[in-house]
């Protein structure tokens, strides 16, 4: 419906915390509608910060972030009409589900968004019921969030965002700490939502699932630069790169086979960033 429309466009974006600590530097990036993108990097490389910037929770004076055709700024987010419309379209599932679940039971949690929109009760109930039955959460319906298991919490957190039907989903480490079965379920859901046209941006350091949750991977170095982007299989086959950004050690190999394909790996596109680390990709 929107074709190649660009959802996010970042130009020279940098971010430092008030303490002076750098979180991101010189990021150029764009995400098209309907894409499935993974932000890959070691702990502390700035992935979560980038998600918060994309969600308009943090703001920066270094560079510009264009979201849904609008440059994000503290001022525009302070506009009630814009911020409501924006937050309906861009949903954020936090890494710590505990942070996100504040209602006294699962039902209320999922209804929180729709209730704010002032929908009639019947409408809200329909949405909540749909989400609950889609995710098989029926037996948790009246349970307080803190009495859920880690995986259930993650699903409820996702459900509470989905009930707003966002076009873009930002997911921070969605699979960390989940058992294999729940992890598979979550991956399948992400895939289906993407097939339904949702734009998915996932921050992760889980290489095992990378190809399933993303078409394209964007790699961050530990010094907060974007050092590579390209199709997942190519990023994964570039062990030197992954070692360089401290995601894996030299012993690394994936436990399950992934489609290498017979063709020779295409060169990964290297975005310009002062040419400082371009040497990453020229294999010795």
């Amino acid at each position, binding site marked *: 419906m929107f074709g190649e429309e660009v959802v996010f466009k970042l130009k020279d974006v940098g971010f430092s915390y008030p303490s002076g600590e750098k979180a991101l530097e010189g990021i150029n990036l764009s995400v098209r509608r309907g894409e499935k993108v993974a932000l890959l990097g070691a702990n502390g490389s700035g992935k979560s910060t980038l998600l918060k910037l994309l969600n308009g929770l943090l703001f920066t004076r270094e560079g510009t972030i264009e979201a849904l055709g609008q440059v994000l700024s503290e001022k525009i987010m302070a506009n009630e009409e814009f*911020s409501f419309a924006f*937050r309906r379209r861009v949903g954020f599932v936090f890494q710590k589900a505990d*942070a996100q679940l*504040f209602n006294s039971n699962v039902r209320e949690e999922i209804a929180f968004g729709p209730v704010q929109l002032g929908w009639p009760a019947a409408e809200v109930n329909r949405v909540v019921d749909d989400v609950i039955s889609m995710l098989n959460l029926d037996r948790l319906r009246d349970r307080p969030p803190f009495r859920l298991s880690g995986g259930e919490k993650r699903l409820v957190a996702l459900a509470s965002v989905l009930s707003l039907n966002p076009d873009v989903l930002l997911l921070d480490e969605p699979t960390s700490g989940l058992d294999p079965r729940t992890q598979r379920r979550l991956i399948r859901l992400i895939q289906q939502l993407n097939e339904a046209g949702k734009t998915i941006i996932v921050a992760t350091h889980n290489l095992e699932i990378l190809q399933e949750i993303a078409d394209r991977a964007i790699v961050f170095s530990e010094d907060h630069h974007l050092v590579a982007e390209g199709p997942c299989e190519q990023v994964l086959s570039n062990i030197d790169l992954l070692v360089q950004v401290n995601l894996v050690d030299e012993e690394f190999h994936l436990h399950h086979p992934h489609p290498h394909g017979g063709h020779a790996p295409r060169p990964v596109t290297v975005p310009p960033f002062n040419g400082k680390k371009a040497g990453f990709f020229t294999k010795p």
Partner: protein
Amino acid sequence: MADFQIPEWLLQSRGPLPPITSSKKARRSFAQKSIDGFSGFLMDDFYAERIAAKKGLMQGLHPGIKVVTSLILIFVASCMHNWVSLLLINVYVLLLAYLSAVPLRIFLKRVWVFVPLFTVIIVLPTLFNVVRPGEPLVVLLQYGSHHQLAITRQGAQSMVLFVLRVAACVSIAVLLTLTTRWAYLLRGFSMIRVPTIFIKILEMTYRYIYVLLHSAGDMFEARLSRTVGRMSTGEQQKFVGNTMGSLWTIALGLSDEVHAAMLSRGYTGTPRTLTNSRLRGLDWVWTVFIVLISIILIGGDRLVW
């Protein structure tokens, strides 16, 4: 794995952002304010750590001596009857701040913004004879032959005295905390016989404040991220209540884990801390000097100026 049955409405796109029709600014929400408050705390603390790491007069003194001499100075400032003595103390603390490499702008901001300014506002009414009778100093308004609105001498004196006193006390405390790392500050308090158990608790509390602040900050951010419509004050209050409740649930779980971790590392119920660093000649010189200054100030306050 079976596919999820995605409901029809979830397949719909919301479409592009609508044009903005009103310029109604959302009030800075309670969630934003709390987030700002939390990050303000972390930032203040960060600056304090940086200043405490610099080389300077206060940084070089033994923490215990620093605590004791600061308490003496605060006590002396509390005892003063004369604005001159209080002015002198204020200026002297500024000198100490300068010699301790504390940026004066940060120091003055920390000291004056809030407590003394708040005090000025609070005592402002006592300037006037309608609130507190006294000898008129400046007559602002004369009505009738016997009635007037005036600033009184007692009011002015009391205000100057009070505000300078509050500022002096606050500056000494701020200087102490800006130039001392938290852990050392606490060890300093063991010198004035604060029981070890309290010091240990204070030390650990400080650490877990960070943990809980981050959790609470995340909760408010998550709330902000899902703010898609206006909510009544009551609903907002309910959110805050729920956040506090779930924070306590997290905290309680944390406390169990801390407890288990302490037990597994051989904790028996009596906390122990490392012993203090040694006192040196200069620390004693400083103590004697501060005591001398205090005597001069008290003597001068009551007898000379």
